[in-house]
Every structure is written in structure tokens, then in C-alpha cells.
């Protein structure tokens, strides 16, 4: 086993997973949309950090900066009907899945306009309309749920509707969850029961402050863990949205067709700390700069510019529009009222009894109806 930190060595951690993109025919408009999506997530996260420091956001807050290509590329590779579930670093997935940023921001502000009426918070983003089954705060807890979502789509398609299973579930986790029993039980069940679920490890090299090889065996080849459960494992380069899409599309199509699980070691890097209170003493500024040079946004921007598909003016106005959108979303969140005290007793039970007052949908879903 390597004694040097995997994550601190960009060349050994990230580079080997880079692959040439098979699909050469991705429309420019799509590429620009991905660029825009990634820029939106980043701007959103920056304003989150600001709002956190302004005490507008409480509790724990984990930002996604650096990993944008993963959420955007993976979501692009599946269909809207496919369920998606993730861990607590979930703002990026919510936005990539299509949640309007204002609901996501209002949720963190603890306001009634939030996607969960201010009751979930940063770590618990849910969006039924977009098949986002949460943000989950306990490391690894979402992995059996992911298996269950896949079980349910297959059961619905095959047992209830007597057709063929045709949905695939994406279940995101961090590399820290590799060491949770829940993941291993979930993988065993998924392998055993032929569940169409893809466990995507967003491997950013650190579980909180612990570099991966300090906490995980076979850190250099974590897909070997999936092999133990008879599950196909794929290593992917997570800093390039086109590569992510390209590889994930193949894998998702395969899982959908074969109704089998898969496991992805998605190499990526988080630029910021684990959470807002993380001083990042466990790594060097040099290391961070090294990775930032591989920035997924800069990468796609450069690619589009070099082929003259994106002008300076266009890029600038894109940035301005996104900044304006996020500014408006922060203002909207700030203007949204705090939840009424009656909300305290709402949504504990579907039914109404005792002090509990039943349930109702958040405005996010009501406004869509």
C-alpha cells in the first residue's frame, strides 16, 4: 500500500481515470447548458458560504464546489423518471436535478418557502417532482435506500405493471461511506436481488479530514469492494462533465437493460472544507491549487472557447445572468417567512391525531400543481 497520500498526489489519484470521450456528437447547446448548470451550482455554493457567514444559514453546511461535473454529468446520463438519492453534500444534486435554486436556498435559510418548509436543512434536500429522494445526513444511510428505490422501480415495472424493468437508480455516496456497514449490506442485497442501482462514490479523497488511505483498505482500487459482491465497478474521471456523462451514459444504459447494479469510483476533489467549520489543516494549499487547475468549469469553458463555440461576451453574460439569478434567489429566500409554529406539528404523521396536525405539501410542489 502506498504510503503517500493518494489525494495529495494528483497524478496517481485523478489522472489514471481520464479516458477519451466516445461521443463526439454532443450538441453545443447541451455543452453550454452543462457549463451553465455547473456555474450555477458554484455561484450558489459561494453565496451559501457567504450566507452562512452572515448567519443566514445555520447548522451544518457542506458545499459542492469542485465536484460540479459529477452531479451535472450523472444527471445528464439518466432520465427524469429515474430516482436519485444522495448524502448530505446535496445542493449540487438538487440543482442539477432541476430544483429551482430559491427553494434550495430558502430551505437552508429555514424558511417556509424551502423545499421541505425549512424542516430538513442543508443536508436534507428532497424534491418529489424531480425524483430526488433526499439528501441524507447519516454517512452511508442512503445506500440501502438506494437499493430499495431500485427494488421498488423494478417491482412496479415488473410485478405490478407486468412489464420490463426500465428505470435505474443513482445512489451517491462519499468515500467515507465506504467504511459503513450499511453500504456493504446494500451492495450485497443489490447484487443478490439484481437491483438496477448505481452506487456512485464521489471519491474526493477525504472523509472529513481523514485521507482515504488512512481509513479505507484498497484505497487505490475501491472497485475491488464491489467485485466482492459480484457488482461491476468502473473508475471515472469526475473533473470533466463530458467524460462523466459519456461513461455514466454507457453504464446507466447497461444497468437499465440488464437490471443489474454497478459501482463507480468517481474521482473528484472538493475545493473547500468538509463543512463550513473545516480549517483544512490536513492538506496543503499547494495541493488544493494543483487540483483547482483541473477545475471542471474552467475545463469546459476552455474547450468551448478553443473551438470558438463560446465567445468572451457570451461567457460574461452567462456569468452575469447566473449571478443575478442567485442574487434573486437569496433575496427570495430571505423574504420568505419563517415557518409558522403550527408547522412544528405538521408532517410528523400523514394522519392527524393528538398534537400532530397531518401533512401538506411544500409550496414548491403546490406552485407546480
Amino acid at each position, binding site marked *: 500500500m502506498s504510503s503517500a497520500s493518494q489525494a495529495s498526489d494528483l497524478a496517481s489519484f485523478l489522472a489514471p481515470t481520464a479516458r477519451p470521450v466516445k461521443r463526439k456528437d454532443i450538441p453545443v447547446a447541451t455543452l453550454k447548458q452543462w457549463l451553465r448548470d455547473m456555474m450555477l451550482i458554484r455561484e450558489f455554493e459561494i453565496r451559501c458560504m457567504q450566507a452562512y457567514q452572515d448567519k443566514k444559514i445555520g447548522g451544518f453546511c457542506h458545499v459542492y464546489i469542485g465536484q460540479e461535473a459529477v452531479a451535472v454529468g450523472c444527471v445528464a446520463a439518466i432520465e427524469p423518471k429515474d430516482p436519485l438519492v444522495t448524502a448530505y453534500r446535496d445542493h449540487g444534486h438538487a440543482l442539477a436535478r432541476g430544483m429551482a435554486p430559491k427553494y434550495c436556498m430558502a430551505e437552508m435559510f429555514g424558511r417556509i418557502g424551502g423545499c421541505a418548509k425549512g424542516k430538513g436543512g442543508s443536508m436534507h434536500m428532497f424534491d418529489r417532482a424531480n425524483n430526488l429522494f433526499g439528501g441524507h445526513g447519516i454517512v452511508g444511510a442512503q445506500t440501502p435506500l438506494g437499493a*430499495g428505490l431500485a427494488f421498488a422501480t423494478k417491482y412496479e415495472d415488473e410485478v405490478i405493471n407486468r412489464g420490463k424493468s426500465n428505470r435505474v437508480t443513482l445512489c451517491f455516496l462519499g468515500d467515507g461511506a465506504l467504511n459503513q456497514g450499511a453500504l456493504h449490506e446494500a451492495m450485497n442485497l443489490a447484487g443478490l436481488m439484481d437491483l438496477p442501482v448505481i452506487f456512485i462514490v464521489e471519491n474526493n479523497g477525504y472523509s472529513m479530514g481523514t485521507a482515504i488511505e488512512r481509513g479505507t483498505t484498497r484505497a487505490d482500487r475501491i472497485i475491488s469492494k464491489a467485485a466482492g459482491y459480484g457488482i461491476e465497478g468502473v473508475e471515472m474521471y469526475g473533473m470533466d462533465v463530458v467524460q462523466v456523462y459519456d461513461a455514466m451514459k454507457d453504464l446507466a444504459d447497461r444497468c437499465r437493460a440488464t437490471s443489474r447494479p454497478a459501482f463507480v469510483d468517481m474521482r473528484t476533489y472538493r475545493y473547500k472544507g468538509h463543512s463550513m467549520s473545516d480549517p483544512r489543516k490536513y492538506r496543503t494549499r499547494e495541493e488544493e491549487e494543483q487540483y483547482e487547475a483541473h477545475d471542471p468549469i474552467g475545463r469546459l469553458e476552455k474547450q468551448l472557447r478553443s473551438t470558438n463555440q463560446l465567445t468572451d461576451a457570451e461567457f460574461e453574460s452567462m456569468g452575469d445572468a447566473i449571478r443575478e439569478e442567485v442574487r434573486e434567489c437569496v433575496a427570495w429566500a430571505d423574504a420568505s417567512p419563517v415557518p409558522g409554529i403550527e408547522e412544528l406539528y405538521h408532517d*410528523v404523521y400523514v394522519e392527524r391525531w393528538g398534537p400532530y396536525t397531518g401533512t401538506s405539501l411544500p409550496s414548491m410542489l403546490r406552485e407546480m400543481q
Partner: protein
Amino acid sequence: MTTIISQRDLPMTTLEAVPLTGPVPPSSPAREIEFRDAVREAMSEEMRRDARVFLLGEEVAQYNGAYKVSRGMLEEFGPRRIIDTPISESGFAGLAIGAAMLGLRPIVEFMSWSFSLVAADPILNNAPKMLYMSGGQFGCPIVFRGNDGAGGQLGSTHSWCVEGLYSNVPGLKMAIPSNPYDAKGLMKAAIRDDDPVFFLESERLLAFKGHVPETEYTIPFGKAAIRRVGSDVTIVSWGRPVHFALEAAEALAKEGISCEVIDGRTIRPMDWETVFASVRRTNACVVVDQSWSFGSPGSEVAAQVSLHCFDDLDHPVVRVHSDDVPAPYAFNLEQEMLPNARKICQAVRTVTYNA
């Protein structure tokens, strides 16, 4: 926060005891079946009614259930709906919760609730909180069921009374039936419930027989049954200890002490109105709960009764629990640990000043 309607001013309502052997139908010949059959009938009927319902757990399919509750279900419903799992409680409980979020209605059998401890995170952190955390977007219509409490000399790791742990959690419902009639009616209600239900059976009651009609019925949650009408003391219990309470009431009747025995049936929600109305008549209350006393459902009942019936009490509420020790193996020690009839008699004599 519970709003309680004052019963003191209302006319006395019907007092009718429902025996543990179930209400006997007036005309057609009564049919007696075991507790385990009642649970199975409920599951099978609901599975026939609703394709979204399925059963999974250890040994539920090919083995016909470790305690034969699911006997024959594999033949009827096939392996897609009666699903054997590996010994992997955390995994399959979480899997079922994910399925429930998507709209299925899983029934998860824990061979023993003692084994659910390794699944504590999904069953406590996910199932009961999903609706709340998602702001009403995703509910969790799921039933967890299995044997709870002392079996027969199973020792400490296998004798958990999880009601002491889990009833603390808002967002879940908990049914603890004491007899076959209730088991079927409550199970059907549990499967149809949109909220997660923890359904606690007792290995000791699985062979207990009672009248169970073949006709369709469900028992609403939060409706207690009066097992015995009495005037001197209200004994509140649920699940297997109801049997101990009735045994004690019988013995105490010979001493001239008339016990009213209330079977809570569900403890979340608890039928406070029935409990309070009874205590207001008897002026004394004993709570019998097989979990440990510290921070238990029994202490909740004692606290609520003390709060709502303070001026009606002639003696502080006394609780009878399992002794505050790990469950022992030796037969005599286990019997002594349980909230047995002897302890209940003593508690009743205490609260009625007959000690």
C-alpha cells in the same frame, strides 16, 4: 400538548369488556385461530387487495417463517412478493424504506425485534422522520413486525422489549396486540396506514387462540379495549402483560378488589381518553409494562395519568415493569424478572391501601 376532553362531566359511557379470546359473533359458529394465523391472514388479505404490499425478511419464504407466521405465503404470492433476505437487518430494513418512499407498502419481518437493533439507523432515523424532513413530500408507509419481549429463556440479547426504546420516537406508530382478534385487525390497519408502524408480537402469544371472524374488519389505532370492568383500580397494559394483568385481577377479585383492565392495543397513539375516564372512576392506577422502568412507555402513562387525573388519584400511580436487570437465562429468574401477576397484585394492593 394532547388535548383532552374532560370526561368527568360527561354521562357514563358504555362499559363493555371485550375478552382476549375475541368478540364472539352472535350467530355464525365462532372460528378460533392462533395469533400467528391471524397475522398471516391479515398480511395475505392485504396482499391480495393491494399489489404494492410485499413481505420480506429472514426465512419468511422457503422456510415458511422462523415462527411459521408466513407459512404458505410463498406458494400463494411467489418469490417476487415473499422475499427471503440474508441476515442483514440494516440492509433490508433500509431497502424496504427506500421502496416505501417510492410508493410500495413493505412488511418487514424481524425474526426478533432484538435483531432490529442493528437496523436502528434506518428504522429510527429514516422511516419515522422521512415525512418531516422532506416537508411532507415523502412518507414511509411500512410495517416492521416480529417477536418482542421475553420468549422462553432466550437470554439477554434476544429478549428485548423494544417498545422501551422505540416508542420514544415521534413519527412512528406502535401496535402491541395481546390476542388474535386484535392482531389481525391491527395488522390490516397497519398495512393500510400511511405512516410507519412498528408491530410488536410475542413469541409466547403466537399459539394463543381466539375468535377471529373471516369477514373483513380492521381495528383503528388509538382505541383501547377494556378487558375487564372493575371499580377499585385501573390496570393499564398492552401486549402479553395484559394476560398477567387479567390473571392478577382474577386473584384480586377473590380478595374483594375489583380491577378494571385496559388493553391499550396501540401505545402510539395511546387511547388516553379511555385510560383517564377509567382512572377518574376508580381513583387508582397501576401500569403494567414489560419494558424496563426507566424512560419507558409505562412511565409515560404514569406521568400522563398523574397530570390529567391528579385530583382523582387516591395514591400515586405505581408501575410494574420487568426488573431493571438484563434478561437472565435461568427459567425461575426470567419469570421473576417479568411483570408477573404476583407483582401486579402487590402493586394493586398498594394503590388501593390493602397492602
